[in-house]
């Protein structure tokens, strides 16, 4: 049976794909914040999310990759675009892209960069030497067991939060009537 | 009904009949009052048509005609008034909403203005057209050459 067969296709050119996808993500990320047209920004963001999904796939996490595509690229970003299209883009495009908070932005970026550098230089030992061997086929079941076993409480809390958000949205929308 | 009107308004009203159809010629000054009464008291609640006719040889060049119908009486009546060229008629849009486009068409075709009409502009012909086609002095082949040349980019529409 195909399901039970171990996935024995050897990964090909892993570093190449990793760097390629990372490059795409970085370029996409820069485009997101530099494009004046919000629709272009949103499309760049979609590229980033898709590249991210591909990296998840490389990490033997197909379920997360699939959910990433469905929820972010297919769902949330469509709603983003939906809202962007409803506002007047001609007016938005004329306004200055960068506002006065760029100082805060630089501080935050420096802090984050510092953190990355610190982790890279000092924190090598917190990562395992070799990647854990993950069986791809079990991935979805593993996620399910984790969510509904070990992290049941957190999962339920998250769903409750979402429920509250949905009800809030409905109440706000209903105000009109 | 006609008799009652006659007694109230005297010489301002001339009731007539032709081929079994009643109509009355009303003085221009009595028009608003008569139409109001016809609508409110005599139950002529349906304004069938408003139109006009042009008689260039008369002093009062235009006939304006209201065709009215009463659902409760199943009866038609025409009200007719004569006006001078350039004279306006009170709009009957407040009395019958249907008069809106009908009056616009009369304005479009004859150049008769209706006072108090919410949107007195041409309806069938384009805005900016010169001349009123249904006047007798407007030839059947006549057109607003200037308008045609500017807006359509052709020498003539014929």
């Amino acid at each position, binding site marked *: 049976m195909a399901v039970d067969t171990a996935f024995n296709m050897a990964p090909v050119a892993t570093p190449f794909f990793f760097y390629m996808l990372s490059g795409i993500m970085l370029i996409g990320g820069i485009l997101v914040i530099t494009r004046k047209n919000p629709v272009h920004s949103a499309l760049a963001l979609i590229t980033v999310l898709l590249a991210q999904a591909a990296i998840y796939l490389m990490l033997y996490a197909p379920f997360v990759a699939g959910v990433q595509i469905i929820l972010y690229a297919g769902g949330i970003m469509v709603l983003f675009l939906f809202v962007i299209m*409803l506002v*007047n883009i001609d007016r938005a495009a004329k306004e200055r892209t960068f506002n006065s908070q760029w100082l805060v932005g630089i501080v935050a970026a420096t802090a984050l960069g510092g953190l990355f550098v610190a982790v890279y230089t000092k924190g090598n030992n917190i990562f395992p030497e070799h990647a854990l061997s993950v069986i791809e086929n079990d991935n979805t079941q593993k996620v399910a067991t984790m969510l509904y076993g070990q992290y049941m409480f957190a999962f339920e809390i998250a769903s409750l939060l979402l429920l509250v958000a949905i009800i809030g949205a409905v109440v706000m929308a209903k105000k*009109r009537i | 009904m006609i008799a009652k009107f006659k007694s109230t308004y005297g010489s301002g009203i001339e009731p007539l009949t*032709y*081929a079994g*159809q009643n*109509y009355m010629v009303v003085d221009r000054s009595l028009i608003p009052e008569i139409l109001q009464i016809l609508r409110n008291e005599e139950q002529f*609640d*349906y*304004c*069938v*048509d408003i*139109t006009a*006719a*042009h008689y260039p040889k008369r002093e009062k060049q235009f006939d304006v*005609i209201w*065709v009215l119908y009463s*659902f409760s009486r*199943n009866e*038609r009546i*025409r009200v007719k008034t004569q006006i001078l060229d350039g004279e306006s008629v009170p709009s009957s*849009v*407040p009395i*019958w*909403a*249907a008069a*809106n*486009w*009908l009056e616009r*068409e009369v304005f479009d*075709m004859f150049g008769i203005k209706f006072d108090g009409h*919410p*949107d007195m502009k*041409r*309806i*069938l*012909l*384009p805005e900016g057209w010169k001349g009123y*086609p*249904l006047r*007798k002095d*407007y030839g*059947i082949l006549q057109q607003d050459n200037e308008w045609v040349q500017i807006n359509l980019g052709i020498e003539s529409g014929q």
Partner: protein
Amino acid sequence: MIDSNSSLSHLDLETPEKPFLDANELVINMGPQHPATHGVLRVILRLDGEKVLGLECVIGYLHRGVEKIGEHRTYTMFNPYVDRMDYVAAVSNGLGYCETVEKLLHVEAPPRAQYVRVILTELNRLASHQLWLGTHALDIGAITPLFYTFRDREEILKIYEKYCGARLTTHAFRIGGLQYETYNGFEREVKNFLSFFRPKIDEYEELLTTNRIWVERTKNVGIISAKDCIALGVTGPVLRASGVKWDLRKAQPYANYKNFDFDIPTCQNGDTYDRYLVRMAEMRQSVRIIEQAVEGLPEGPVMAKVPKVMKPPAGEIYHSIEAPKGELGYFIVSDGSTQPYRVRVRPPSFVNLQALDLMCRGQLVADVIAVIGTLDIVLGEVDR
């Protein structure tokens, strides 16, 4: 911007509706080239999202000056022109014109001519309603009824073609009666058509009447009350769907209609679905009328004594008939010459179209399509 009138308390068209949250209102130009405006009607829609805040009709793209032409043609010569107004119901136009001129001339068409006129006019009503049904359903997205109705309309057109040689703009009637005696087998063919057509109405109804989507798309869409109908001068099936039992064929019978037994179908809600039902019922009534007319078709001449050169005495006449779209009136002023001094046509489509704004307020874009379809306008008649 909007054709409106504030002073009628129940017709509050003046107050412009504001879009939600000061959102930009979207102005959409529907037509003059648009698949659903049934010709060259241009509708300027002001939208908030998909909700209609108001609309303005721009008409006149098909204006040919029919009334002006009438003043320059003799009474007989003008007869074919009227067919070009409501071209899907050309026979009705002709009937109205011929009867009006006959009244001016103080003649009456002989009984046989009257009966044939009724048959042809009612067939025309069927053809007009079929065309309406097909295009209306097409607008709402049902593409199949169009082909069914065109298939059956073809049979009517064949009868016309055989009778007078033309299919659409027939010029079937003459002032004073008919030009031609009916052809051999006319009665049989009309009867055959009736027995062919009766089950077809059921077929249309089977496709649409209880179709859930059709009902949802048409119920409570474009509601107009009887009061508003009368105020706006709306006549025909639209008025009857609002609950007013008024039909000129009964109210002021012309052309022998008083001899026929038929009902005036009415509905109460005045929405698009009711107008659909009323028209479907009218088709059945028309079939009834034609049946009686064919059964009782009298023998005799088909042309009254009319002078070759018509010079009606000076005077003026307003006469109207119940065209498929509503009251079709002719106001003719004669000055005693061979040409009418003034011809005025009171087109039902033109007056009915005024109600579009009222009927579409607060509805969605998709409903505008349905309402334009349900008003059953013909732009040739609106613009003349």
